[in-house]
């Protein structure tokens, strides 16, 4: 088993392009993800064609009183260009008593945003009415009632969490790709015949599989760890100190993915077909499992059911639990159990399929 395991590593190191791609892509990917970490609030450019500079900045101060959104000053031309180039989804036009949302494409945040702006406008409107009809000056709005929100676990704004989910989800998604692509090697070995050569050697099949699978698992674990290390030390994203929990989740997740890989290798015969199948499987799993958007926005029952079957969902859930909610292993039993269970089932089916294929493969 260790012989096979070691050999796969030697082979990996013999292909510098592959290795460099692997490391380089991880680095680049994480760098982009770090960019994703950059902004903590949603910024909205504002423009006005009727208000003076001063009036506009008054409005901005008023709008920026709450910290959920950040309104910044801009002008129509810039905004137009940004929306046209898909660099922004929307912008806000300010006027004395009206506002105007300029929208290029729908965005999940926009309905809350409109609500927020509309409320401020109606408040201002009302204040102005009252102060006019009573002939008194500006009315100061006191804060008699405050709403304080606390999470059960220490964490800041909801934005930060959403972004953390994306960072975690994307890292896992990326590792799914690497693992599955590397596992194509199993099919290739069957085609070149080295696999058969090992079958009729005294090496048992169990050891052969174990050596191979352990290799892929370790590569996967190393990649995720590497990504987290880069994020932690080069970008400065905190992942807390629950190393044990994080480690266990990563290992279980990678196990589930390697098992998924076995299933694919059993189902799909040629590396060329795998080229097409892998992206489809990886991407649909990520979409269904909530790596791209929060699952709460999905209301379709079928999809919600399917989400329950996706290992990546539990991977994200577990990582978030360990990183942000400070959960202990016993509190993380659900995602861990789900990952191990899916792993075992997929592995069983996958190995069976692989074996059925090899029953028809001579030298």
């Amino acid at each position, binding site marked *: 088993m260790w012989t096979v395991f070691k050999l796969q590593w030697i082979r990996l190191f013999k292909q510098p*392009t*592959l290795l460099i*791609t692997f490391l380089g892509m991880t680095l680049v990917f994480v760098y*982009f993800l770090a*960019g*994703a970490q*950059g902004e903590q609030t949603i910024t909205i450019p504002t423009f006005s064609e009727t208000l003076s500079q001063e009036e506009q900045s008054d409005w901005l101060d008023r709008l920026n009183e709450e910290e959920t959104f950040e309104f910044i000053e801009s002008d129509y031309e810039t905004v137009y260009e940004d929306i046209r180039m*898909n*660099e922004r989804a929307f912008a806000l036009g300010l006027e004395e008593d009206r506002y*105007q*949302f*300029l*929208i*290029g*494409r*729908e*965005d*999940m*945040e926009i*309905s*809350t945003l*409109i609500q927020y*702006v509309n409320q401020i*406008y*109606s*408040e201002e409107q*009302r204040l102005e009415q009252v102060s006019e009809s*009573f002939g008194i000056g500006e*009315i100061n*709005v006191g*804060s*008699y*009632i*405050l*709403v*304080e*929100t606390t*999470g*059960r*676990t220490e*964490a800041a*704004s*909801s934005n*930060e*969490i959403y972004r953390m*989910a994306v960072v975690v989800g*994307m890292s896992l998604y990326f590792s799914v790709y*690497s693992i599955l692509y590397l596992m194509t090697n199993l099919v290739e070995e069957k085609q070149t015949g080295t696999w058969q050569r090992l079958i009729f050697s005294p090496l048992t099949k169990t050891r052969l599989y174990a050596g191979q699978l352990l290799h892929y698992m370790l590569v996967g674990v190393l990649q995720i760890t590497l990504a987290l290390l880069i994020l932690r030390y080069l970008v400065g994203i905190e992942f807390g100190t629950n190393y044990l929990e994080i480690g266990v989740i990563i290992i279980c997740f990678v196990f589930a993915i390697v098992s998924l890989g076995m299933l694919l290798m059993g189902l799909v015969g040629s590396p*060329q*077909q795998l*080229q*097409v*199948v892998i*992206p*489809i499987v*990886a991407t649909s799993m990520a*979409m269904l499992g909530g790596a791209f958007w929060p699952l709460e*926005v*999905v209301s379709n029952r*079928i999809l919600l059911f399917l989400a329950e079957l996706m290992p990546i969902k539990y991977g994200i859930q577990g990582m978030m639990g360990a990183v942000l909610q400070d959960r202990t292993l016993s509190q993380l039993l659900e995602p861990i159990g789900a990952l191990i269970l899916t792993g075992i089932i997929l592995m069983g089916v996958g190995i069976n399929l692989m074996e059925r294929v090899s029953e028809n493969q001579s030298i």
Partner: protein
Amino acid sequence: MFSLIKKDTLILTRSRSDLTELLLMPFILIAILGLALGNLTLSEFTINAFPVALVQGQSIDRELEDWEEVLENRGVPDDTIPLLTSQAEAMAPGIQLSTLLNDDEVAEWIQVVEYASNEDALEALDEGEVAGVITIPDGFNASVWNAVMFDEDETGVISLEVQNFDNVTTDIIRSVLSTYANQFNLEASIAVATEGGAEASGLSDDNYGEITTLTAADPISSFQYYTIGMGVMFALHTAPALASRAFKEKKQHVFGRLMISRMSPLTFLGSKMISGTIITFLQLGILFGLSTLIFGTLRGYPLRFWIDLGMLSLAFSLVVGAITSLLTSITLYSNSDASSGFFGGILVTLFAFVGGSFTPVEQFSEALRSIGNWTPNGAMMTAYLQLMQGFNMSEISPLVTRVAGMTAVLLVISVGLFPKRRLD
């Protein structure tokens, strides 16, 4: 040349499963998207009512009793005490809040469950039985009364405890509570400033604004956005998929045989480029066509739009063709399938991410989006979106020119890399 292209397409049509995967699988993703995001539109957002725990402090009667005492201690004349007390009762925010939470409109989202103690409620929260715990503490009303009537520096604090900040449910509860708090603050401030003169009126639900688009066309829906996003990503995946076939050909010595025959290497590369282009074009055509037929993604656009869409798709197909020929060159040069498989697959994923196929990246950083517009898929995605937003061709063409430039550069590199000597 033509025989080679014919061979390539023939091989693909023969291996029917490959072709089905290449052409139809993006459609599966679109279906997932359609079901997941199809109903996520600007105006309506459906979520089932979810339970929220409410923990009330003292009863209002106790608080009013205490309040009378407070008034006495302040030395308020006995005859005004009943007046102030009834005023206080009328504006008791605790009462208003629980009325509001049980209101029909709010009940569509939030289903209030009363808990006697904070501990029980928090336990329920941990068990996942409720989405949040709203606590109105002892003396909440009194704090507010003090602040409003005697201008004391006190604040009534409603506390909301949730499991996670990232839940949509959290956002909803929070927005209900803070809308109420804002409104109360506003009305109370007005009442104080006008000494009770202004009639308290609820904020009008009027819209003080409008939603407009840059052109007359409708904004892009999330569904349309992801359809384009997935479409360009999978079109890009065609390139490594075809390049790995080139490697297989080499393994089977087809390539060597072609090289010995009088065929020039450029013809070989050219045939890869053209088959890449044709397949991508078909792929996009099927995707847009079927998606419109089944989900109505692009329904209601005029013929002119479809012609422009065809032109954009052609430009995109060409750049994918160029990438195919580049990857073919690299594969043959490095003599390894790993490059086209791993490199291609992973690079495409990275490009798709930066280009905004998975999620609008400008939410993360604008720089990312600008970089994205320099990837072939990102640039084309923006161009498609522009077309759908109703921009005319002259405004779209800079991006298309950019992509055409990339096509040329990629082709030059791929010819430069192409192994000149016969390898085997």
